[in-house]
């Protein structure tokens, strides 16, 4: 499959590059202190933070992956939004942001230091720093490989181009640059994908026709009609849906453990809220973000569903076919190539490029902050001037990008290592939310409890993975390397359950060890860090539609309604 571009498409892409660099250039004079560079001077309005909050999460790989899942699994993919994002986003805004923002911690690991102790912070900071560098390297590799196939671009050229542009704008404008470009990306994604969905829907004859076509897809794959267009109706047994998951795994594994673990503790997203200009704005950030987030399935999942319907209608020619199976990862590109003429094609491509670059910039800004404040200031050179750390931040930006490029090249030669590392990160991340939840809502949780809880949660994740295997998979990276005690119907089901085991282990062990050890912080030290010791925020002057609890209720309510409509 190849997409042919014309001059006009390249012009649009270049306009975007120029503005991105221009924004960095315009912001450079506002970056004077470490706070400006790492935290945008805590001066960003809520709506800007909110849009950045979801854009930072929506990298190009997610756009491509969500369309692929839409084609492969249908509307059940929306669980990653309506179950796996909205409740957690409401929770972090209403309950957790007062501690993140109020404690004046400059990063998520720093919160762990204030709340627990040095070793818990170190564990989190180091694993997070390594993880961000790797994930931006991997997405760089993925995109450069894709552009090579689709557009015939040179692999090295794609890597160098994206690295240099991201480097320039972060180096000049710091976190503000990253946030502004994420907002830009948000608009580009909406404007680039909306006409695609409209044309696709029109072509297939509207939603009702799409449902009929997708029924054919479902029956053709050996499932009941409606499997591609009902989000819950076929989750009674994993055998009834192509994801191979049951409702309990979706609710607990995805909706609770994985989702809260990501949205409530990942510094990549939390950093966007920490940059807000007030406590109220910080709390509203994830809640504002939740509104477009719950509508995004229409932009990123629906194109995949249309693509697979078109594939069936066209007797298997719409998507490229590999080994008798449609190549789902090409869904979004097949749609772009089919419905967009040159011109719009440039816009669609620019939107993908923007989501890729801002995803990468998000990783870089989170990395340079954690590196400078939590690792460099924490362990290498404490007690230096703000100017010193600002310089370090600039160096860390260059270093982080160089390391990412290194990882991208590593991925070209050792794909297995990359898969392995991603697996290890998944183990480290799975139990995290238990540590934060106990930290924020149980004042008795101690540093030793947290650290060893996290460690045992990670080990539990690894053990569970080593002892189970998804159906039709070989022993190795997919699991079973300690002997297969249980077979899951799908990889996704295994992931959900790995998370559930890890979280539960961390939760129980943290409580047990905390009860057995002495509290390492006084109540006075924990003020502003733990729920029961922090005065409630009261602002009776805020209108109801700006109050976090009210906004939270509205977004969660809306998500429930969406789940019911597409049940």
């Amino acid at each position: 499959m190849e997409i042919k571009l014309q001059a006009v498409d390249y012009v649009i892409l270049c306009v975007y590059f120029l503005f991105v660099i221009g924004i960095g250039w315009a912001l450079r004079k506002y970056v004077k202190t470490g706070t400006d560079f790492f935290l945008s001077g805590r001066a960003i309005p809520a709506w800007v933070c909110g849009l950045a909050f979801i854009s930072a999460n929506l990298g190009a790989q997610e756009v491509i992956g969500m369309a692929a899942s839409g084609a492969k699994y249908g509307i059940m993919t929306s669980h990653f939004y309506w179950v796996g994002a909205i409740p957690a986003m409401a929770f972090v805004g209403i309950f957790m942001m007062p501690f993140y923002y109020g404690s004046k911690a400059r990063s998520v690991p720093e919160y762990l230091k204030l709340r627990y102790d040095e070793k818990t912070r170190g564990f989190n900071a180091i694993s997070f720093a390594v993880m961000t560098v790797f994930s931006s390297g991997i997405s760089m590799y993925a995109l450069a490989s894709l552009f090579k196939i689709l557009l015939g671009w040179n692999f090295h050229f794609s890597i160098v181009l994206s690295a240099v542009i991201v480097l320039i704008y972060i180096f000049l404008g710091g976190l503000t640059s990253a946030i502004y470009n994420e907002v830009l990306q948000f608009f580009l994604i909406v404007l680039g994908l909306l006409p695609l969905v409209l044309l696709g829907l029109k072509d297939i004859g509207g939603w009702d026709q799409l449902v009929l076509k997708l029924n054919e897809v479902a029956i053709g794959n050996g499932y009941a009609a409606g499997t591609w267009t009902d989000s819950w109706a076929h989750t009674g047994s994993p055998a009834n849906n192509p994801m191979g998951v049951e409702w309990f795994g979706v609710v607990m594994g995805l909706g609770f453990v994985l989702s809260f673990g990501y949205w409530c503790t990942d510094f990549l997203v939390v950093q966007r809220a920490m940059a807000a200009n007030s406590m109220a704005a910080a709390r509203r950030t994830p809640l504002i973000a939740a509104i477009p987030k719950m509508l995004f399935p229409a932009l990123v999942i629906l194109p995949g569903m249309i693509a697979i319907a078109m594939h069936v209608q066209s007797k298997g020619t719409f998507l490229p076919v590999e080994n008798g199976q449609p190549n789902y990862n090409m869904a979004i590109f097949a749609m772009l190539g089919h419905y967009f003429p040159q011109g719009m094609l440039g816009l669609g491509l620019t939107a993908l490029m923007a989501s890729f670059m801002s995803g990468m910039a998000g990783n870089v800004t989170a990395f340079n902050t954690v590196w400078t404040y939590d690792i460099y200031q924490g362990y290498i050179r404490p007690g230096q001037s703000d100017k010193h750390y600002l310089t370090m931040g600039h160096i860390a930006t260059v270093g982080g990008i160089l390391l990412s490029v290194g990882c991208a090249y590593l991925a070209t030669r050792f794909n297995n290592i990359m898969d392995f590392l991603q697996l290890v990160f998944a183990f480290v991340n799975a139990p995290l939310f238990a540590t934060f939840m106990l930290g924020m809502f149980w004042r008795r949780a101690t540093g030793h409890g947290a650290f060893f809880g996290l460690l045992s949660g990670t080990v539990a994740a690894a053990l569970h993975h080593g002892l189970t295997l998804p159906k039709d998979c070989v022993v190795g990276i997919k699991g079973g390397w300690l002997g297969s005690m249980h077979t899951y119907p799908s990889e996704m089901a295994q992931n959900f359950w790995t998370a559930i085991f890890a979280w539960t282990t961390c939760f129980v062990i943290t409580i047990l060890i905390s009860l057995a050890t002495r509290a390492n912080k006084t109540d006075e030290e924990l003020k502003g860090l733990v729920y029961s010791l922090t005065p409630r925020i009261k602002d009776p002057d805020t209108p109801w539609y700006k109050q976090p609890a009210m906004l939270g209720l509205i977004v969660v309510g809306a998500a429930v309604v969406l789940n019911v409509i597409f049940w």
Partner: protein
Amino acid sequence: MNLDIRMPMGLMFLLIGAILTVFGLATNCDPIYAEHSLGYNVNLIWGLVIFAIGAILVFLARRATKAQAA
């Protein structure tokens, strides 16, 4: 915060909108383009939409600057 993001963003969409609109007009008689998109001149239509969004963003940014100055 000293730079209103709506200004550069608005300018960018004005420019991209203009490029698409002009390209759409220039290729209006060439059926190859509309063939893709169910017969619509999508470059022209969506170019105008993007241009309008750019204009709104610039307008909002200017209004905010004026309100600040006043």
